[in-house]
């Protein structure tokens, strides 16, 4: 097994200087993916719940979705997709030895992440303003199906939003690591792993957007 891991280090990294330091980039990346699988199952469970309730309350889900603004959801989709691109570019820049470029792309990724949260904030506060929130006056008087729709909407986009916040923390941590010279063109896998997490956040939004906003 250790022999196997060693060959993989040679195959998968640009590490040519770390002859004596034990480093398993392959295992590191595999560990990240295993964690991402648990995330997929976590959100997968919520999507199953969505499917079940959507079948039961189909017309009410359409009614609820009409309250959401498509353009805001679409804008957030574009913001997240773009942040995914800048994330990849940050990794590519680092692999190519362009540390300044990598830092710049990483900062823009964090910027887009904040952009996503700001749009989400306006979206939620607009709903809150109209009393459409968990326990909100207006929502309590709506039919059961619409309540369920917004219950799912808030829990799923909320959990996703939490992931965005964690992602910002993770990317900021990576930014500091690059600035400190701990993550380098020869040792870029930590940045790749942080990138994997960020892409997962994007991936989940790709499904959340049509399921909640495009229900007409």
């Amino acid at each position, binding site marked *: 097994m250790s022999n196997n891991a060693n060959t993989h280090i040679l195959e998968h990294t640009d590490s040519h200087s770390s002859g004596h330091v034990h480093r398993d980039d392959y295992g590191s990346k595999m560990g990240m993916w295993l964690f991402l699988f648990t995330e997929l199952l976590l959100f997968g469970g919520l999507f199953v719940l969505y499917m079940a309730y959507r079948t039961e309350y189909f017309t009410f889900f359409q009614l609820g979705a009409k309250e959401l603004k498509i353009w805001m959801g679409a804008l957030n989709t574009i913001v997240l997709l773009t942040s995914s691109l800048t994330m*990849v570019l940050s990794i590519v820049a680092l692999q190519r030895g362009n540390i300044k470029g990598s830092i710049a792309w990483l900062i823009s990724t964090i910027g887009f992440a904040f952009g996503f949260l700001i749009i989400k904030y306006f979206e939620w506060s607009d709903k809150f303003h109209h009393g459409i929130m968990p326990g909100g006056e207006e929502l309590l008087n709506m039919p059961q199906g619409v309540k369920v729709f917004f219950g799912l909407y808030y829990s799923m986009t909320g959990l996703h939003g939490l992931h965005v916040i964690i992602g910002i923390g993770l990317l900021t941590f990576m930014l500091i690591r690059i600035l400190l010279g701990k993550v380098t063109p020869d040792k870029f896998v930590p940045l790749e792993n942080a990138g994997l997490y960020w892409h997962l956040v994007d991936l989940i939004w790709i499904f959340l957007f049509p399921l909640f906003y495009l229900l007409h």
Partner: protein
Amino acid sequence: MAEHHSNDGRIAHAHAPSYGINIMIWLILISLTVLTVAIAGIDLGRLTLVAALLIAAIKSAFVINYFMHIKFEDLLFKVFLWLVLLVLLIILVLTAFDVFYR
């Protein structure tokens, strides 16, 4: 795969990191987003959901393969990913049977 090469490790990274391909993928993803919003405007009945999910699946395939680099990873990563997707599918289908035929 000899142990003694020190600088060959870089060459072993065959899929040279490039900016261009990722920008291409991004353009495709943005186009698909516009498409999915446009299709949602047309009333396709039950097909609306199918179309939306199909586009979402295509988009996620691009993200996973290119942005998340799975296309260039070891077979083991791909096998694991397919297993997880299979588990999700099984849970979804079994629940669907319960929900639809209740």
